[in-house]
Structures are given as C-alpha cells and as structure tokens.
C-alpha cells in the first residue's frame, strides 16, 4: 500500500494533509494521536469510504477511490467504531457476512465460506456464542464478532478503528497475538489504538496524527526516544514524566523476550514450528500451555528450561489452571504492561 500526498477530511474541509507512507505487506501500522485528531477520518479515507481531498491511496498499485467496491472487498476489510444493531442476526451470521464477497448467487455460502467463518470464530473465541443473537451479546463480544467478521473476509489489508475498545485486558492481549499472527501470514494491519503501550509494543511503525493536521511516521523506538508523545497529546511536563516512567518500565521488560526467536504464545497450534516444545501432558497442554499469557515472561513463576529452538519447556506450570485464579494472572499481566506491582510469587 502506498499513500501519496494525501489530504483527508470531510466536506472539502481538510483535516489532515501531506501524508506520505509506503507500507510493506505484513506490516503493522498503528495510528496514535489525540481524540478528534482525525484518526478515523484517515482510516475511512484509506478504506475508500471517504474520497480523498487531495493525493491518492494505492492498494496493490490501484487507486482506492477508483476501484469498484466489489474488487476492494476481496483485498481490504474493516472494523469501525460505528455501533451496529442488526435485528435477529446470530453472531455466526454476522461473521459469515464477511464472506459475502465470495458467496454465490443470492448470497449462498459454500462449505469453504462456512469453514472460514468457523475458524475466525474459534480464533476470536466466539464458538460458544455463535448461535446467540448479536443484539444479546455484550459489547466486548460484539466487538470480537466484528473483528472475526473482518478476519474471515481474508483480506490483504485489515483496517481497524480502535479494535481494542470494549475488550478486557485478556482479550486485548490475545487480539494483539492474533494481529501478530495475521501479519506473519502477510496481512497488512492498519489500526488506530488508544493504548500507547500496546501500539508501541506491536507496531512496526506508528502514524502520529496531530491535532493540527500534521501526520508523521515514526518507529516505536523513535517515539520513545524523542519524547514525541508529549507534543502529540499536548501533555504538561508532569503528565509526560508519568507516562514516560510507565513506558520505560514496560519497554525494558519487552526487550528480553524480543531477543530470542518468537513463537506462538496463544494458540494450541500443532503446526507451530516449536511443537512439541515442552514436557507437559496433552491435557494441561491444550488447556493452557499455548494460551499462557505468561509464556514470554522470564519470571513467570514456574520452572522451565529453554529448548535449543529457544522455546520454553515448562516443567511445573505456575499459571493457575483455575478460573478463580485469573485475577492474579491479570494482575501479573498488568504488572508486565505497566511495570508496576512486580510480585514474583503468583
């Protein structure tokens, strides 16, 4: 994807100007910036909903505002912040609607479509609620349904406006894992995020959307080093120091696992290049091992050795296999994210 001299806005009023960026396949790009700064406007222009005021967005060398919606629908899918209220539509039907570009006449779905939708449901952990009517789901479940819908559309480009909204911390982290996995498959992900720490952790590059309409491209490292955040959000000195302390704590922890090779941290994935990577029996394995959010923490609390491939080989998993103990784990995860409360005993 290539964005050239783009100016975006509503009703001929320019909100953002002179945006230039070339995005490689599989890149993860996050838009960060203050509320009302124009993140959604930029995303809407990229996905072709808004006509650019100036400049062009190219997707696979084609001008987005010129190609037909039909063609675009096989290359780009969206999650937006608009709340939808479909009547009497099950979660599965909502997910399946992402397969409409591939469906036959009268919107009939093939087995391939159904399988893709079922896979997306499993990925977003919706299988249990797939027959529930969308209107009866919680906000977080709705959000996950819409994300699953966008994923099963099998796009080259996934454009999401605040995909983490309504999600609790666990689903948020899992979503990040899903995004990483998609990007490894070659899907380019462009999204706006409010959680700076997530944006800094996951993104290859960041688009900083300022209130005055200026858009700059930076790597997460640059953002941290140059102190751009203060200017971007117009933070006062004291506020910025607080934010910075959090980032530094989170950033330092991040460095350690990044040194080793990456692995599937979330999925029970027998195709994982590291499988089998541990000596636990299958039950505890399918229950938690690959889901373990503490997997990439060196001090997860359990005993383990490192395999030669660089994966953890857990001996006695410390991750509590009991739902009642989840709060403790979440506390630990928070510690990992925000760099506070580093209680070593779980």
């Amino acid at each position, binding site marked *: 994807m290539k964005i050239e001299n783009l100016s975006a806005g509503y009703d001929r009023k320019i909100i953002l100007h002179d945006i230039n960026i070339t995005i490689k396949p599989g890149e993860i790009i996050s838009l960060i910036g203050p509320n009302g700064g124009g993140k959604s406007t930029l995303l809407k222009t990229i996905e072709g909903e808004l006509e650019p005021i100036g400049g062009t967005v190219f997707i696979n060398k084609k001008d987005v505002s010129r190609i037909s919606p039909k063609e675009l*629908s096989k290359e780009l899918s*969206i999650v937006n912040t608009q709340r939808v209220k479909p009547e*009497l539509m099950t979660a599965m039907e909502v997910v399946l609607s992402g397969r409409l570009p591939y469906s036959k006449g009268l919107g009939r779905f093939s087995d391939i479509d159904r399988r893709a939708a079922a896979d997306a449901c499993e990925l977003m952990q919706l299988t249990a609620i797939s027959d529930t009517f969308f209107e009866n789901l919680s906000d977080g479940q709705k959000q996950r349904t819409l994300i699953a819908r966008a994923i099963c559309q099998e796009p080259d480009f996934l454009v999401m406006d605040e995909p983490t909204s309504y999600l609790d911390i666990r689903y948020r982290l899992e979503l990040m894992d899903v995004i990483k996995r998609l990007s490894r498959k070659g899907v380019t992900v462009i999204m706006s995020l409010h959680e700076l720490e997530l944006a800094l952790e996951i993104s290859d590059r960041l688009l900083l959307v300022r209130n005055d309409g200026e858009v700059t491209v930076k790597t997460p490292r640059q953002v941290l080093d140059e102190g751009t955040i203060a200017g971007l959000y117009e933070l006062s000195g004291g506020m910025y120091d607080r934010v910075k302390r959090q980032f530094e704590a989170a950033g330092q922890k991040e460095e350690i696992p990044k040194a080793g090779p990456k692995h599937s941290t979330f999925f029970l994935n027998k195709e994982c290049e590291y499988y089998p990577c541990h000596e636990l029996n299958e039950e505890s394995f399918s229950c938690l091992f690959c889901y373990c959010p503490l997997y990439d923490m060196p001090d997860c609390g359990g005993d383990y050795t490192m395999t030669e491939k660089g994966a953890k080989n857990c001996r006695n998993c410390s991750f509590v296999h009991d739902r009642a103990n989840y709060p403790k784990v979440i506390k630990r995860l928070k510690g990992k994210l925000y760099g506070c409360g580093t209680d070593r005993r779980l």
Partner: protein
Amino acid sequence: MPAKNNYRTIVVFALLLVLMAAAFSVNICVGNVRIDFNTALDHKTANIILNIRLPRTIMALVLGGALAVSGFLLQTYFLNPIAGPYILGISSGAKMTVALFLIYAAGRKGYTNNFIMVLAAFAGALMSTGFIILISKRVRNMAALLAAGIMIGYICNAITDFMIAFADDSELVNLHGWSQGSFSGADMAGAVCSIIIVTGAMLLCFFLVKSLDALRLGEAYARSVGVNIRSCRILIILLSSILSACVTAFAGPVSFVGIAVPFLMREALQSSKPVILIPASFMAGAVFCLISDLMARMLFAPVELNISAVTSLFGAPIVIFMLIRRHKSSEN
C-alpha cells in the same frame, strides 16, 4: 445456521403455502352467491368467478404480497422496522397523483389505462420517497423520520381533498371507493397488469438479495463487502416505490400490511435474512390481504368495507405490540 432454525423455516413456509391456497379458494367460493366445488358451472357462475372473484382474488394476493415486500425494502433502507409505504406517506403521494390523473385525464377525457395509472402512482410514490430521503439525511432520529412521513401523508391527502372538492361530480366517478382502498374495482386486465409489474419487481428484488443481506450491518460494512451503496440505494427505492405504487394504482392506499407482515415473518422465522424473508413476506402479505379482503366483503355484506379499515384493525395492534416489545428489549 442451526438445524432448529432450518426446521422452523420449512414449517413456516409450508404453513404459508397451505394458508395461501386455503385463502385463495375461500375467496373464490364465498360471496353473495355461494359457490362450492359441487356447484354446476353454468354461464352465470362462470361469469361471477372469471370476471369478478378471480381478478379480485388475484389482485389481493399479488398486491398484498407486493405491499409487504415494499415495506420490507423500506425497512432495510432506513434500518427502521416501522418504515412502510403507508406510514411514510408514499401511498398518499401515489394516491395524490393517481387522483390527479383520474380527475383531469380520465375524468375529462374519459381515458384510462392500467399502465398509465401505475406510472402516475409511481411518480407520486417517488416524489414522497424523495422528500423522505431528503429529510432522513438531516434527521437520523427514527421517530422524527416517521413523523415527517406522516406529515407528508397529510399534505398529500390535503391536496387530494382539494382536488376532489373542486372537481365536477362527473370527474369523480372513477375516484369513489378507490381513494379509501378497496379491491372491489378489480378486473382481469388490471390483474394481469399487476402480475406483470409485481413479478418483474420481485425478480429484481432477488438480484438485490445479497446487497440487502449486507445492508443489515449498516452502510459502511455493506460497502466493505463489495456493495455499491449508491446504486443499491437507488434500486431499493425504485423497487419499493413501484411495488407500493402498483398497489395504490389498483386498490388505493392500503395501511399497515407493509409494517405488520415483515415484522410477523421476522418473528416467525427468527431471522432477518432477506433471502428467506422476501418470499415469506410476499406470501404472508398475500394471505393477510386475501383474508382482509374477504372480511371487507363479508362482515357486513352487502355493505362493503374499505380494505384499509380491516388491515388497520389487525395491523395496528401488531405494530403497537412490536413497539412495546422493542422498547422492552432496548431497556434490558
């Protein structure tokens, strides 16, 4: 789709088919002259069946279905379950132009033609719909939109009344009865004409099914799965206008079928999938109108009621029930 729902769909459709067949034959047989299968088909009864009851029954069936589908299309367009051709003033707009046509062209020059009647009604329907769309761009509020539709209905009715007040009695011959909504004027030519128009519109509807399906999640998502929103919107409006115009041209404005029937079908089928709801709405609309017409004819025979009176009597409570239910579910 869960198996339970498939089963439900089959049952509902089977039931609709049986009801439709039953209502059709009862409408043919029952009347001031009772005809049953043992009655000898002499010249007189054949005449009654072929020239009076059959066209009327066919019209009630086809137009009832058309009205329900028209309502369904409007509901999809406005993402609003209470939208319908009658309540949004589209029927009144069509009525106005048909009255205009009947008084000034047909009344004075003594010339009528089914297709021109439909065309006149279509123009009026499009005019009203145009107004509604203009308003709906400015106000997103569901209640305000309905109020606007009702007001447009009043304006059109007022203009119609003006025209009637200033027209000569001789010009009003064609107008009587029609303007209240009734299938009593049905003839075979009209029945054939409505079959042609409604069949054409229904076929086009099925071309739109995929887009309608996508539109359930709103415009942005529909666009993202490849729906050309602009042309799709124009097609929906044209189709729903032609369907309700056809009804208005032949039977006058008929109330509530467009709202009540799609709602009942959604509830019965527990689904909002257009590919099953459009045929279901059509069949249920046909049954609803056949039964209503039968009641309009028979309840106080030989006095004939307006069909709108009967459909309102049954339709309005359904709509009220629907509002209460929606209100409840939005509170939870």
